[in-house]
């Protein structure tokens, strides 16, 4: 049992947890800035970047893919800003125009290029294949964790995601004050030189990095779910920012573990002889947690009165968008 777990489940679980935690941490700021859907947009635009990198380099090497995806993400953010400003449309619509176009381009590129030899298809891009990331060298059981040769044979996604999670934590620590001030009051932030524009752009770059790194392992849908569901649930639990981040990490870890276990063993418990998509199940569990938080979270109503709770005032959303654009002009 122990050996089976180490070989089959340890790495997917660890990767799932890392993806969920890194996305959820950044997601707190996206939710507070009313930019939740940036995560959605970025994880869609990654597809043409990855396919483009494959066409250019002819390999599925991680470095090229990550670079291609990163370039596509930054390009998309720039385009969203241009569409929003020139067309004077709401940020959501500008985002919708750009990310669907990018995704369509990715789908077309994929169909047009010969990717049959490599593991690259749209379904994979959408929901990944977490279960396939097994660690054959872990056949020695838990002892393998101490064996350098076995460790060297770990799926490369694991160290990569560990690095990204570390980078996310570092980013939040270094720019904590700037992120908080810029999120709460961007005009004030501008006036004290906290550079809200560049900082929001950096946040989006980090979102892209997290999405791109996670994408390869788990697909885009879980990434979107993790950017939004744990932070949104956490927001309904507390009125303080640091506890909110802590709650979001807890929810992310619970979603990852419970989702993975339910996907692998749930159908067996129900008497079926197959397992279901772990990525899909993790998103489902995150959604269930959010549903519970919506129904019973102690701070679910926030401090707004019922009358004002209807729809967000548009000015703040656009405000942050404009601070992004300021940074883009630099």
């Amino acid at each position, binding site marked *: 049992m122990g050996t089976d777990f180490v070989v089959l489940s340890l790495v997917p679980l660890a990767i799932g947890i890392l993806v969920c935690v890194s996305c959820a941490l950044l997601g707190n700021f996206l939710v507070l800035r009313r930019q939740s859907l940036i995560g959605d947009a970025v994880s869609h635009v990654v597809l043409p970047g990855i396919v483009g990198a494959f066409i250019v380099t002819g390999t599925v090497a991680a470095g090229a893919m990550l670079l291609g995806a990163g370039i596509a993400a930054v390009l998309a953010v720039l385009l969203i800003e241009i569409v929003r400003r020139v067309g004077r449309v709401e940020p959501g619509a500008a985002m919708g125009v750009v990310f669907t176009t990018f995704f369509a381009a990715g789908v077309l590129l994929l169909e047009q290029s010969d990717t049959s030899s490599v593991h690259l298809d749209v379904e994979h891009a959408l929901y990944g294949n977490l279960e396939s990331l097994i660690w054959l060298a872990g056949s020695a059981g838990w002892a393998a964790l101490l064996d350098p040769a076995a460790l060297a044979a770990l799926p490369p996604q694991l160290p990569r995601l560990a690095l990204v999670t570390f980078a996310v934590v570092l980013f939040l620590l270094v720019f*904590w004050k700037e992120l908080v001030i810029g999120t*709460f*009051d961007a*005009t004030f932030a501008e006036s*004290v*030189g906290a550079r809200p524009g560049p900082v929001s752009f950096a946040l989006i770059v980090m979102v892209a990095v997290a999405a791109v790194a996670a994408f390869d392992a788990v697909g885009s849908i879980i990434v979107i779910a993790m950017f939004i569901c744990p932070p949104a649930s956490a927001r309904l639990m507390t009125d303080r920012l640091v506890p909110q981040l802590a709650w979001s990490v807890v929810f992310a870890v619970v979603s990852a573990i419970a989702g993975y276990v339910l996907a692998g063993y749930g159908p067996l418990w129900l008497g079926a002889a197959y397992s279901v998509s772990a990525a899909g199940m993790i998103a489902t569990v995150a959604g269930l947690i959010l549903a519970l938080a919506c129904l019973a979270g102690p701070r679910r109503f926030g*401090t707004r009165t019922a009358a004002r709770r209807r729809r967000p005032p548009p000015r703040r959303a656009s405000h942050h968008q404009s601070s992004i654009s300021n940074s883009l002009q630099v």
Partner: protein
Amino acid sequence: MSTPTLIADNGRTLGESHPDSPLAVNGLTVSYGEKPVLFSIDFVVPKGAMVAIVGPNGAGKSTLIKAALGIVPRIAGEVTVFGAPYEKARHRIAYVPQRASVDWDFPATVRDVVLMGLYREIGFLRFAGRRHRERALACLERVGMAAFADRQIGQLSGGQQQRVFLARALAQEADLYVMDEPFAGVDAATERAIIAVLKELNGAGKTIVCVHHDLATVPDYFDHVLLVNVRKIADGPVATTFTSHNLQATYGGRLAAAHVEEVAVGREAAGEGR
């Protein structure tokens, strides 16, 4: 008229012409597309003055201070703060945005917001320490909000929120306070508390610039006034500038002549209404 030369005293800059002015603005123009929001505003704030920026809705009052502080891009014009470009004098300004411009449901306490005023002092890569917390508390004390330090900001009333914003500005220990509608939607007690703090600051030699919407209180609260409606209509001491003629020119047909007469002439009118 002598032959006009372009650059007065060849090569002097705006800052050199007004080295002491906390805020000097020359030819400031802001536009959205081809519609100017502000057109060619020239304005020099005297040191130690208490200035009201007055004008009808949509006259560009808020845009004026945002453009002066570099928050909104301008298409023409120069601005200096204490004789230097804004970026170099940032630490000498405390800017208080409109209360309604932020989401008060943000997960932060009153103290957290005031600590934002210490942003420059805390410095890069550092977090607020005990000293900063005490400073924040002292600023809250000055606006009568010390008891609320650990309260979530969304639980405050409008007046209390404005006091917190003022405390944040106090924490900046600036020489110029630029405030956008500090009295909008606050209760009478808060209005008195805020003006008391502003007068105290003014007494200590600080300069105050407020976008202000209540004409009746202008003569009571301020000593200088800038009347704008896209263009500058007039500026100067309240006694000579805040006249019914100038107000009529600022507000046009939108303000009944009788009302203009009342607020411009009668200082006592300010006291009666409240």
